[in-house]
């Protein structure tokens, strides 16, 4: 057998980082060419938050905030109306981050399959890890951008101050929640790679995730078993941690902030590795069957 070198390819760590950067930049360019898309996306959490606020006011009248505070059993706060509004807005914004991360990472595979670029990608020597790293970094940047635009606009619209409570800790919860989300995104991506026609499942999953995260209510409202299942779900911990830190109220499991935070860190170590491994295994299984590009 003869070998004639590998053309212009120069593999190595620099090339791997180049893959990450190129994938990220390409994604940013693509989204920037859909005019107005980001602004419209940022309006969604405000609309999501407006639903329960208006419903709450319709049911509870001027006492909606006080009723919510009493029923959710949270600590007393000076301005009940602001508390109620910020509670909904933070839940909706965090849900948008979670769903965007899951959607952008998980559904990325499917989109590439549909556009035919997945096979082209698999023909190239770039390691999947760095391509995925580019995609996840893009998902992170986009979801953070949406979070902050939505929170700012939403705060102005609902007349609330999001810069209350322990902001640093809220950001810490957000950061700690991202790595498990990557892992869930990879798991989700592998699942979509396998079953392909995933639209209905993706749609349903969004609402299941919203339900489990308790975006409009504390998960302590659930029956005991479900309560623990929901509380063990990293997006729930992230949502609860951010909300509790900003609003200065109690954390999950009736504990201090460090318990859900430590659990999130634990998930951060395990879930991305688990998700990535599962993704690679699924990919390999598919290559033994019909191939990754078939859809």
């Amino acid at each position: 057998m003869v070998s004639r070198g590998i053309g212009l390819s120069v593999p190595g760590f620099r090339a791997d980082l180049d893959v990450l950067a190129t994938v990220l930049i390409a994604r940013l360019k693509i989204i920037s060419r859909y005019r107005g898309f980001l602004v419209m996306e940022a309006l969604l959490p405000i609309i999501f938050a407006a639903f329960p606020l208006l419903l709450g006011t319709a049911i509870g009248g001027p006492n909606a905030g006080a009723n919510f505070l009493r029923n959710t059993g949270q600590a007393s706060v000076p301005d009940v109306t602001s508390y109620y509004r910020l509670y909904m807005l933070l839940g909706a914004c965090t849900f948008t981050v979670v769903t965007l991360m899951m959607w952008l990472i998980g559904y990325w595979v499917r989109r590439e399959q549909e556009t035919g670029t997945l096979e082209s990608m698999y023909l190239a020597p770039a390691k999947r890890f760095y391509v995925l790293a580019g995609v996840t970094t893009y998902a992170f940047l986009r979801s953070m951008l949406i979070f902050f635009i939505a929170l700012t606009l939403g705060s102005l619209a609902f007349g609330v101050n999001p810069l209350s409570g322990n902001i640093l800790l809220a950001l810490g919860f957000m950061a700690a929640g991202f790595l498990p989300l990557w892992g869930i995104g990879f798991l989700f991506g592998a699942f979509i790679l396998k079953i392909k026609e995933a639209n209905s499942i993706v749609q349903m999953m969004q609402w299941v995730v919203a339900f489990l995260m308790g975006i409009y209510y504390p998960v302590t409202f659930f029956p005991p078993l479900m309560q623990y299942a929901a509380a063990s779900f990293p997006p729930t911990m992230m949502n609860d941690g951010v909300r509790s830190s900003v609003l200065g109220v109690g954390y999950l499991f009736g504990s201090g902030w460090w318990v859900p935070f430590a659990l999130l860190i634990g998930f951060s170590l395990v879930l991305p590795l688990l998700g990535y491994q599962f993704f690679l295994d699924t990919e390999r299984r598919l290559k033994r069957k019909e191939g990754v590009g078939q859809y």
Partner: protein
Amino acid sequence: MPSPIIRVEHVSKTFISKERKKGEKKKKKAVDALKDVSLDIYDGEFFGLLGPNGAGKTTLIKCLTTLLIPGSGNMWVNGFDVLKEEDKVRASIGCMLMGDRGLYWKLTGRENLNYFGALYHVPKPVRTKRVDELVQLLELSDFVDRTVETFSSGQKMILAFAKSLINDAPILVLDEPTVTMDVPTARKLRSIVHDLHRQGKTIVYTTHLMHEAEELCQRVGIIDRGEIIAVGSPAELKASMRREDAVDIEGIFPANVVEDLRALAGVHSVMVKAEDAGRSKLSILCENSRVMLPRIIEKTIGNGATIEYIKPQEVTLEDVFLAKTGRTLGIDTRQVFGGEAKPSGGGG
């Protein structure tokens, strides 16, 4: 002959497809896409893989390019084991798959080339220069800085071809590259591929168009129903049929003529191509046309046919395929999807 740069040893691949028939339970069906395929492709060679749709060409290409893992067998590309050194194999190949749609429509042509260059680990300064070279070589400058969504189909295909050249790999794999191209673009692509081969690249070119294979390839492997049934240069393959002549007869033929001709001793195959206004063309492969032609004419006219034109033909790769398989290259064997084979124009 130089050393092999691609070696395929006893490769088999079976797909499991699910069959759904009305009123019946879903059934699994195994389809052998590749059956014990062995093949050497030599360094610097222009190798054609010729076969009808569904013959297994794309499956073999996908196995070679690491997109599929074969059920059994071994393969080496550029000295690297396809199953163990996937990244090196990928870096050794520039590939354009059939009907390549692998472009980002919201990126410009240049951005697409840059993107895939990065995926092929081509360093940025080298990449920029390489993209400029390709723009010049393939005459992309009129449209390369527009987003792909504004391209015509031909422009997309030529950009997909440029993508396969971005890493300047020693092996270029082209899977039916001209299938959706207009005639001038296809001609231009063939000319460029020919030049690349002259510069020393090994080319693996799959096609079901025999004129492409005859025009370009030094050696051809004929594949049918997942099996390599003949390998050799076009001249060798045609020489293997020297004892056979090809004759084309045009005219108006009653239905039983074809069967009667097939039954005639010395006639190996008869292929029917429908023309317009009730006319047909029979392509006949037979032993020694000087001896056979009077018998063929007698049999045809005796059946009430009207002969308008008779022409002895050079043996083509299509005739080789017909003689080896009993079918034409225009056939769609639908290996993977489990449909029945339907000849496009009669059959021999």
